[in-house]
């Protein structure tokens, strides 16, 4: 079964890069892209993706708020935060908002595919946990 993925990032170049990375995996499909948090919430509501790959710092609506809203309205949709912020505090905030995964962009080539795989199976994936690493 195809895993349907929504990508949300305000930088088109980053969206292209994420799409290129994700598109390499058979059975995964990027069904849409969003340019900010508000659009991510709207598109998620319309298309019910399996996974939303969400940047944190976006205009109009912050990624953490978008994550919270998406998780509230679509409990089966998992959110993977992909961000440049290598911050334990930010990661905790993301998890509190309902994100299942947190990946730092500088580590994206190494962690992104494993993270999407894990969260699509409703498993946690955090790449910057102080005590743990990887999926559980």
């Amino acid at each position: 079964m195809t895993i349907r993925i929504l990508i949300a990032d305000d930088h088109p170049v980053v969206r292209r890069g994420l799409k290129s990375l994700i598109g390499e995996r058979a059975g995964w499909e990027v069904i849409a892209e969003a340019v900010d948090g508000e659009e991510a919430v709207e598109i998620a509501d319309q298309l019910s993706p399996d996974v939303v790959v969400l940047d944190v710092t976006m205009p109009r609506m912050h990624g953490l708020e978008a994550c919270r809203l998406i998780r509230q309205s679509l409990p089966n949709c998992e959110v993977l935060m992909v961000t440049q912020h290598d911050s334990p505090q930010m990661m905790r905030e993301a998890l509190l908002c309902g994100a299942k995964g947190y990946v730092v962009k500088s580590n994206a080539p190494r962690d992104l595919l494993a993270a999407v795989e894990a969260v699509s199976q409703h498993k946690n994936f955090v790449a910057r946990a102080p005590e743990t690493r990887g999926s559980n």
Partner: protein
Amino acid sequence: MKLRILIADDHEVVRRGLCTLLQSHEGWEICGEATDGRTAVEKARQLKPDVIILDIGMPNLNGLAATRQLVQQDPLCKVIVLTITDSDQVIREALDAGARGFVLKSDAARDLVTAVEALQRNRMFFTPRVNDMVLNGFLGRGSNGSSHAPQLPQLTPREREVIQLLAEGKSSKEVASSLNLSTKTAETHRSNIMRKLGLHSIRDVVVYAVKNNIIQVQLPQLTITGDDPAAST
């Protein structure tokens, strides 16, 4: 003959995005990629690309310092800098370093192809804000009309390399290793930098480096959710 482009950015996600953007243009090819400024300078020497696209905020050697070295190596080289900020200082430094193009990362999808086309025709490409600054003759005076000498030129090119590495968290020994210096020389540079700039700790060095765009950071915006974690899942 294809236009050969070298891309340098420390994030693979961004490099992939730039590659797919540029390779879709007929007649262009990506001849190489680099993850930091030092590698970019070395690859440019080997590959002799027609256009070089450099992220400003790279580790080891940032895009501005790399631009200076590239232009020194080949005064005819065509460099486009990519940056997350278009502050006066960054613009001034990019132009002083010899960049012929200046593109904001947030607008790269819209502007980068146009920028490369311009450089291909031996023209320059800058964002409108930079054009305004150049037209207003900022190279001769600051934005408030008075002459402005930025702090950074107090440092030698080598000192600028050292301060970036220190701000990235490297010890003097690691700085020495990165720059093929003795540890003693690296420590001398460190002392000189701190004395010249009146800095007293590595924390001061980091703050200085961020303020002067030697390293670029985008500060996280944290929110207090106030939600019961159990209720959000």
